[in-house]
C-alpha cells in the first residue's frame, strides 16, 4: 500500500516551471534518494510535499488521503515533515526547546520534553541539548533539524542535505542513524544529498530530477547507467561509483 | 447623473494630488525598503512652510510649495542621516517604532512651536469655479491638480532621464550591485528619503488653498496615503499616481451615499481589504 502517491505535480512561478509533471509512488519503509543537478527542483518538490508550496497542478495523496494544498501543520499531523536545507532552527531557543516545540504536536509539555531528549539522543546531540542554537556548528544544526523533525513522530521524513559539511566518518555515522530510523522505527525516508557516495550507499531507490522533470526512477545501479542521467550531470565518472 | 460626474471629476482632481502626496512614501519604500509611518507629518510640515511663505513673503501657495519641497527635503534628509540610517537592517519592530516615534515628535513639535490653531491662506482664486457644461471645476482643486501633474512629470524625468534617477533605481533594485558599480548607496538613501519627504511636503504646499493647516493636519492623511500606495503597489511611482486617483474617486463618490464623516471609513475598509487580498497592488511589489 503506497504511503505517498504523487501525480503530475507541477509548480510554476510566473514563466518558470520549477517542477514539471512529476509522478511517483513511495512504499512504506523505503529509503529513497532524490538527486539532480542544482536548480533541478528538488527543494521545491520537498516544499510542495510538506505543504509550504501549493502545486500549480497535479495531486498528492498520503495514505490514500489528498494532501496537496493543505497546510504544513496538517501534513505534519498526518505524518510527513522535512528539514530545511539552510537549517531553520528557531534562533533564540536552545536545541532542546526547538525539538520540544515539535514534540508538542502530539504530546503535552512534559512528555514532549522527554521525547525531545530522546530524539536528540538518537542523532547523537543529547549533550548539546541546553546549548543555544547560535552556538552550534552547521553540521550540528543540520542534525538538530533531524531531531526536531523526529519529534513530530513522522512516518515519512524528507531530509534536505543533512550531510553537507560532514567528514566521511561523520557521514557514515549519519547514514547508520538514518538506516536505524527505518529499520527500528519504520520510517520512510526521502533524502536529497549532493554527496554521491553517501546517497548511493544509503538509497535503495533513486529519483532523478532535471529541470523539474523526473528523468529516472530505479535502483542506484540502473540509474547510474541511465544515459539521460549521465548527460544531466555531464560526468561519466559518477556512473562508476556505487 | 451630473452629480455623479461632478463627484468623479472632483475625485480625479483631488486624487492627482493624493498621488503626489503619496508617491514619496512609495519612493522611500522602494529604495530604503522601510515603511515610513512619519511620512504624513511631512505633509503638515509642507503646509506650514507654504503658509509662512504666504504670510511673510506673500507667495502663492503653489510657488510656496516649491519652498516646502526644499524644506521637506532638508528635514527628511536630516532625519534619515540621524535616525533612519540606523534601522535599515534592523527587525520590523525597530523600523515601525522609530518612524512612529518620529511621527510623534514631529506632530507634537509642531504643536509646541505653532500652537493648535488652524491657519488658512487667502488666494484670489480661492472661491472661483470654472463652468464646463453642468460641471463645476473648482479652481483651487484644478490648480493643485495641475501642479501635482507637473511635479509627477518632473519626477518621472528625474528617475528615468538623469544619472541620479538611474542610481536611485539601481539601488532600489539591487543594493550590492549598485555599490559595486561605484554608487554611494548611503548617499542615495539620504537623497531618496529626502526626495520622498520633499514630495510629500510639496503636496502639502499645493493643497493650502483649500485645506487648513494645523499640527494634526498630517495625521488625517496617514491611512489615506498608505491606501494610495498599497493600491498602486508599494515601490511603484506610476502606481502611486494611479492609486491616488482611485482613492480620490472612492472618497468623492462615497459622499453620494453616506455622511461625510464616514468617508474615511470606506477608505479604511478598502485599505485593509487591499492589503489582504491584493498585496502587490496594480503595478508594484508585494506587501507581504
Amino acid at each position, binding site marked *: 500500500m503506497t504511503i505517498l502517491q504523487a501525480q503530475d505535480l507541477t509548480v510554476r512561478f510566473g514563466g518558470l516551471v520549477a517542477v514539471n509533471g512529476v509522478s511517483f509512488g513511495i512504499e512504506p519503509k523505503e529509503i529513497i534518494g532524490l538527486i539532480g543537478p542544482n536548480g533541478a527542483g528538488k527543494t521545491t518538490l520537498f516544499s510542495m510535499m510538506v505543504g509550504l508550496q501549493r502545486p500549480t497542478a497535479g495531486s498528492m495523496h498520503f495514505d490514500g488521503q489528498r494532501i496537496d494544498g493543505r497546510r504544513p501543520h496538517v501534513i505534519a499531523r498526518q505524518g510527513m515533515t522535512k528539514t530545511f536545507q539552510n537549517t531553520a532552527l528557531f*534562533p533564540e531557543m536552545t536545541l532542546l526547546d526547538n525539538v520540544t516545540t515539535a514534540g508538542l504536536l502530539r504530546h503535552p*509539555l512534559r512528555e514532549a520534553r522527554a521525547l525531545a531528549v530522546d530524539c536528540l539522543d538518537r542523532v547523537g546531540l543529547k549533550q548539546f541539548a541546553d546549548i543555544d542554537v547560535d552556538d552550534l556548528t552547521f553540521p550540528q544544526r543540520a542534525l538538530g533539524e533531524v531531531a526536531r523533525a523526529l519529534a513530530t513522530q513522522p512516518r515519512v521524513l524528507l531530509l534536505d542535505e543533512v550531510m553537507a559539511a560532514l567528514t566521511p566518518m561523520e557521514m557514515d555515522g549519519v547514514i547508520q542513524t538514518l538506516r536505524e530510523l527505518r529499520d527500528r522505527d519504520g520510517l520512510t525516508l526521502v533524502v536529497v544529498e549532493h554527496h554521491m557516495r553517501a546517497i548511493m550507499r544509503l538509497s535503495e531507490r533513486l529519483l532523478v530530477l532535471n529541470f523539474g522533470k523526473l528523468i529516472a526512477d530505479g535502483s542506484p545501479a540502473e540509474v547510474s547507467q541511465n544515459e539521460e542521467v549521465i548527460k544531466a550531470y555531464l560526468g561519466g565518472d559518477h556512473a562508476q561509483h556505487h | 447623473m451630473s452629480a455623479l460626474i461632478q463627484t468623479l471629476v472632483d475625485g480625479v482632481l483631488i486624487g492627482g494630488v493624493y498621488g503626489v502626496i503619496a508617491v514619496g512614501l512609495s519612493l522611500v519604500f522602494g529604495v530604503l525598503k522601510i515603511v515610513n509611518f512619519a511620512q504624513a507629518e511631512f505633509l503638515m510640515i509642507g503646509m506650514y512652510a507654504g503658509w509662512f511663505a504666504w504670510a511673510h513673503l506673500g507667495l502663492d501657495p503653489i510657488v510656496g510649495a516649491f519652498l516646502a519641497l526644499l524644506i521637506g527635503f532638508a528635514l527628511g534628509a536630516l532625519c534619515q542621516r540621524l535616525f533612519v540610517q540606523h534601522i535599515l537592517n534592523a527587525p520590523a*519592530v525597530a523600523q515601525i517604532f522609530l518612524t512612529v516615534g518620529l511621527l510623534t515628535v514631529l506632530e507634537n513639535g509642531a504643536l509646541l512651536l505653532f500652537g493648535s490653531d488652524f491657519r488658512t491662506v487667502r488666494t484670489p482664486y480661492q472661491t472661483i469655479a470654472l463652468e464646463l457644461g453642468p460641471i463645476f471645476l473648482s479652481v483651487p482643486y484644478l490648480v493643485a491638480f495641475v501642479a501635482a501633474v507637473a511635479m509627477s512629470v518632473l519626477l518621472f524625468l528625474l528617475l528615468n532621464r538623469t544619472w541620479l534617477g538611474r542610481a536611485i533605481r539601481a539601488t532600489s533594485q539591487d543594493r550590492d550591485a549598485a555599490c559595486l558599480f561605484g554608487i554611494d548607496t548611503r548617499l542615495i538613501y539620504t537623497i531618496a528619503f529626502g526626495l520622498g519627504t520633499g514630495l510629500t511636503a510639496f503636496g502639502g504646499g499645493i493643497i493650502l488653498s483649500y485645506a487648513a493647516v494645523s499640527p494634526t493636519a498630517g495625521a488625517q492623511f496617514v491611512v489615506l496615503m498608505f491606501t494610495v500606495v498599497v493600491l498602486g503597489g508599494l515601490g511603484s511611482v506610476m502606481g502611486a499616481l494611479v492609486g491616488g486617483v482611485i482613492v480620490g474617486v472612492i472618497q468623492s463618490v462615497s459622499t453620494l451615499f453616506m455622511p461625510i464623516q464616514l468617508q474615511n471609513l470606506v477608505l*479604511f475598509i478598502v485599505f*485593509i481589504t487591499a492589503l*489582504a487580498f491584493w498585496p502587490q497592488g496594480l503595478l508594484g511589489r508585494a506587501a*507581504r
Partner: protein
Amino acid sequence: MKRSLILVALVAVLAIVLANVLDPRGYILRIVCLILLAATLGQCWNIVGGLANQISLGHAAFFGIGAYCSTVLQVKWGITPWLGIFAGMLLAMVAAFILSLPTMRLKGPYFALATLAFGEACRILATAMPGVTGGPQGISVPFVGDSWAMMQFKGAGNYVYLFAGLFVIVSIVFALLAYGKMGYLLRAVRENEEAAEVSGVNTLRVKLIGSLISAALTAATGTLFAQFTFFFDPESVFSVAHISIHAALIAIVGGVGTLAGPIIGALLIVPLEELLTTYFSNDAAGIAPFIFGLILVAVVILRPRGLVSIFGRRRGRPSGLQQRDAPPADPAFMAKKRAGAES
C-alpha cells in the same frame, strides 16, 4: 520569571497598602491608579506585540470597545458594569476575530498599518453613531455615588483594588502564555513561521488565540477606565497616540516580551507624564507626547536589537525555560515507546 511575578505581586500589594493608608481622594492614589492602568494596558499589548511579535498600532479599538460597551449598557438599560465588562470583552473578541481574517498573514509593518486603520475605523464609527455612543460629544457613566455594585466610587481609594486586581490577572495570563505550552508555540511562530508550521504548529490558530486574549483583556481595561474617569469621547478612548502607541511605548520602555516590562515602563512613564503636564500644561501642550516620541526614537536607536533580543536572549528570557530543569527521559514513557516501535 519568578522574580518578575514577585515584582508584580509586590506592586499590587504596595498599591493596596497605599490605598488604605493615604487619603482616598488624594492625588497620589489617582496616580497609583493611572500607573496600574497603564501597566495593564501595556501588558495586554505585550501579549501580541511581545510574545507573538505582532506589532499592533490599533489596540485602542479594543480599549474603546470595552469602554463604550459597558457604559452604553449602563446608560441605556442600567446594566451593572460587572456584567458589561464581559459584554465588552466578548465584543472585542469578535472584533479581533473579524480583523484577523484579512490580516493574519500580513507581516510586520503591514500588519501594524492594518491595525492602525482598524483602530481609526472604530473611532470614526463611534463618532458617527450618536444615537448609541453619544457621538463626538462623548458619553458619561451615570453617577450613583459610592457603589461596588455599579463599580464606581467617589475617591480613588477603592479603584485601586479594581486596577490592582486586573493588573494581577493580566500578568498571570501573560505568564501562563509565556511559560507554558503556548510559550513554545508563540516563540516558534515568532521566530520562524515556516519552520513552525512544518514542525506541526498551527501558526494561524496560535496567532489568533493570542490576539483574542489580548483584545478581551484590553477591553476589560477600557471598561475600568470608563468607570474611573466617568466621562470620555471617541477621541480619547480610540486615540492612536494616547492609547495605541502609549500601550506599546510602556511595554517597550520596560522591555518588550518580558513579564515585568510593562510595570517598569508604567512606573517610569506615568509619573513623567504627570510631571510634564502639570508643569507645562498651559504653555506647552504636547510636551509629554513630544518627549515620549524622543524616548521611543532613543530606545530604538540605542538598542535596535534590544527591542527583539530582550525576549529570548540568555539572561532574563521571558520564556525563562530553565533548561537545567529539563527532566531526564521518563523511563516508563520510553519503554512504552520502544514497545510500540517494535510491534
